[in-house]
């Protein structure tokens, strides 16, 4: 690309592509920008794309929202009744407040376990199901129940926790109680949405790195076949028909050349691998027939990638000699 789009818009767009899994949309916008569209056009399109994706996510989770709204509505009489009765009372000591907090955590875990036991999934599981496969007509009532269960049980529980910390009077009126519960529920939902997007972005970035790693131009096996003759006369024949991952398939050419120049024997190469930490991934198993030394290629290659090229060369030459 000859021109650079606005950095913040591009960053937002990349995260959107990762979160929504819609990389082609990001590519289309970059292509159009490269064709001469203005920065303001790029910003406009980015904002529209974000709004559209958010709207689509809300629409896909329609069943979840229905369940949550029903659960919230169903718990209101319970919370209001407790409020009218002035229950539970505020705790006087700090220790009791800590105990209430621990009890709240335990109850939350129990709710999660109970939801999984009763409906086969938690409320977050409902979201994942809807986003991944959608809901068939037969599934929908069960998904609504699973989504409703969490706010139905946890909202009165949180009300009780607040009462123990402060007092029921802290809500001033039943109207304030309903409003604060609604704000609590909304804030929780927004936080959950952002955290799930955040983890989705992280997961996608990891996958991108893995792909870039796979796409790296590792030395080809037939190239290595020529150069690998050690000082003790052992020739390392590497061919694709062996279907075996070898250290040489992942090691860079520079390292191999350095090892060979130093008159490195097969045992010394093994030692170099061991010293560089390959033993962590399992001691190399020697195949007597072809002298292949299989190790976890990806991990070992990552290990070789550490440090600068000259540092690596110096290190391995020293070991080799």
């Amino acid at each position, binding site marked *: 690309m000859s021109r650079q789009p606005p950095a913040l818009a591009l960053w937002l767009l990349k995260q959107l592509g990762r979160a929504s899994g819609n990389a*082609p*949309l990001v590519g*289309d916008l*970059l292509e159009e920008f490269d064709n001469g569209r203005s920065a303001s056009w790029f910003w406009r399109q980015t904002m529209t*794309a974000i709004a*559209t994706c958010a709207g689509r996510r809300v629409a896909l989770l329609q069943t979840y929202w229905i369940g949550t709204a029903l659960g919230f509505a169903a718990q209101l009489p319970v919370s209001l009744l407790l409020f009218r009765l002035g229950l539970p009372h505020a705790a006087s000591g700090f220790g009791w407040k800590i105990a209430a907090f621990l009890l709240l955590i335990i109850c939350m875990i129990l709710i999660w376990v109970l939801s999984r036991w009763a409906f086969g999934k938690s409320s977050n599981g409902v979201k994942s199901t809807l986003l991944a496969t959608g809901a068939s*007509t037969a599934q*929908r009532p069960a998904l609504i129940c699973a989504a409703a269960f969490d706010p139905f049980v946890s909202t009165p529980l949180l009300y009780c926790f607040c009462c123990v910390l402060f007092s029921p009077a802290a809500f001033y009126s039943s109207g304030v109680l309903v409003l604060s519960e609604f704000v609590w529920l909304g804030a929780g939902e927004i936080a959950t949405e952002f955290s799930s997007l955040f983890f989705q972005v992280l997961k996608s970035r990891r996958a991108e790195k893995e792909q870039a790693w796979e796409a790296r131009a590792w030395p080809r096996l037939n190239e290595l076949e020529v150069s690998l003759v050690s000082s003790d006369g052992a020739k390392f024949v590497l061919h694709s028909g062996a279907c075996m991952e070898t250290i040489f398939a992942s090691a860079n050419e520079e390292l191999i050349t350095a090892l060979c120049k130093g008159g490195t024997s097969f045992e010394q190469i093994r030692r170099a691998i061991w010293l560089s930490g390959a033993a962590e991934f399992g001691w190399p198993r020697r195949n007597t027939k072809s002298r292949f030394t299989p190790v976890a290629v990806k991990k070992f290659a990552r290990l070789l990638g550490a440090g600068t090229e000259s540092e690596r060369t110096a290190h391995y030459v020293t070991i080799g000699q």
Partner: protein
Amino acid sequence: LRASDFFTIIEQMARQGSLSEFELLVMLALMRVGDEAYGVPISREIEQRTGREAALGSVYAALERLEEKALVTSRLGDPAPERGGRAKRYFKVTAQGLRAVRETQKALTSLWRGLPQLSGGNA
């Protein structure tokens, strides 16, 4: 009437409903562009024919809805450097999609026909 019946009715209504205006525009643009149809040419086609800007995000959202209804299919192309290494997503109208467009055309034409307000150009 059970709860599941209620959802079935809603689902059927959504399926049987004709294409929305924007979905119809996207379908027609897709058919015009042909085999190499992806987001950019589709949105350009809409812009050229209608004179209004079609946001790529909206085009993709419409295409995804159409794909869910099995009216279009998509496949990923190869990554391209001018697109920051991202692949193109090519779309194609299915036989069911063609039928839906024809039905919408029929419905619109029959509504159009014989409207006195639109005949003679004196609205």
